[in-house]
């Protein structure tokens, strides 16, 4: 079965049937999913109920019981249906041993 995925610029949201992530409830209805280091523009998730997981400083998982909407100054917004998502940041090849994150 093909994975359901949504893309906004350099961020890919891949829907997961099951997630083993340890989610935390976000206290606000807005969550900065990724910072735009190049432009200062951020990917911001807006939802009344947001659960998230992080790897380091990077949000890598989302659980959205009632769905959400991802906003960004330079991209059209994306609606995410209710569910759990893996958040993947786009990368770029630099050498056999190194990749770098792509930033909007």
């Amino acid at each position, binding site marked *: 079965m093909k994975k359901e995925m*949504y893309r906004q610029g350099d961020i890919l949201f891949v829907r997961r049937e099951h997630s083993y992530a340890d989610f935390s409830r976000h206290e606000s209805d807005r969550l900065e999913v990724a910072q735009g280091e190049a432009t200062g523009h951020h990917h911001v998730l807006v939802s009344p109920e947001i659960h998230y997981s992080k790897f380091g400083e990077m949000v890598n998982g989302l659980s959205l019981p009632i769905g959400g909407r991802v906003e960004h100054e330079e991209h059209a917004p994306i609606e995410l249906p209710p569910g759990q998502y893996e958040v993947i940041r786009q*990368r770029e090849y630099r050498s056999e041993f190194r990749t770098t994150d792509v930033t909007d």
Partner: protein
Amino acid sequence: MIPGVQNSIDWETNRARTHPADRAAAEDAARGFYRTVGLFGELRSVLWADSFPEFFQMVRQVGQAQFPWFWLRRRLGDASEYAPLLGWFEHPFTGRKIEWEFPNPRLEKFRAIRPQLLRAGTPQWMLDDLIDQKLARLFKSDPDFKGFEDGDWNMDDEPESYPQSYFWHQLIPSVYRDSFGKVLLNRFDNTALMTCESVAATRILEQCAAFFPSFHCVVLCDFPERIEPLDGKPVGESLTFTGRFRSGEEFFVWRGCPLADRRELEALLDIGELSRDRLLDFPEVVQRQIREVLGDRSLMLSYGISNLAEVLPNEDLHALIESQSTEDLFEISKREGFLEQLGTDDFGTLFRRRMSEELEPLMFVEVLNSTPEPDGSFRNYVLRVPPDVSTPREAVAWTFGTIDPEDYQPVRET
């Protein structure tokens, strides 16, 4: 700084000086320096060099580069660790440290025995003095030094002479860049304690092109007669220039690097035509500077990857490529006409630039931004991808990590 004391020198003006040195004034300043510093003994003789080559020759003759290690140690502080002396010279224009390649087996030996001496109850201050005396023995021409015998110390491990690299890598470039004294002064400026020496050294450097202190003897160098910048900058600021001393000796400097002759300078002025073999003919210090210059982004853009591949060893070229932005690499490759289009699909266009056999090809995927610009147009952007991808879809899927290319099909994309 001592209040009211002028402790600076106008280096640009100083470097532009082409009048004959006021030798009496320079020697007076040198005497003042010796009195102030107090660690070289009384100044008894002054050697004047008419040119830089002669200056270096004299510095060697004065006693195999009697560099005032103990004096520096005392000024720099720490008695037990000589690490501050390593990399003591700093590149004056990049701020990068130049590694000090001075062999010093005695210091290693001393480090080894120092804990034993401390354990044996030797007072710290005595140990410090011991270091000074030990190091002072390096300066064999010091007639006042009475010697200090110690069974733990083996004089045989003293090198007969300092290596050529010391001159090539440290001293000569420093003087040509007019930084020898400057670096000294920068160090002195760090603490008020050193200010007196700094001021005294400044006085000398206002009167001559370079100086080198050793026991009871100082080597001074006259100013050049002419300096001709080749980089369009004023004389005092130029880093690429030719010069001539009154003795007739000419000197050639390319981006701060002293060169052996005019042919080398001419070759470097047309650096884009340099072959790799030709590059390897230069002394190591020049090679390093060449690679640094070639690593400059603007040169990469000017000369392109193809020319650089002719000049740089593979590992340097690889490092240079890795440091460049994808946009620049793509544009250069496109301009040079080496981009092959490998395929187009709904996800973008895949390009390859072949490199030499030893280097992997550069692969790019050009994709269209899904969100229109304010004017309604769509912007392309380029990403580098691994050399083993074969379709644009596979390339874009790779940029999102572990996504299977067959699975990569966003429901919505903006």
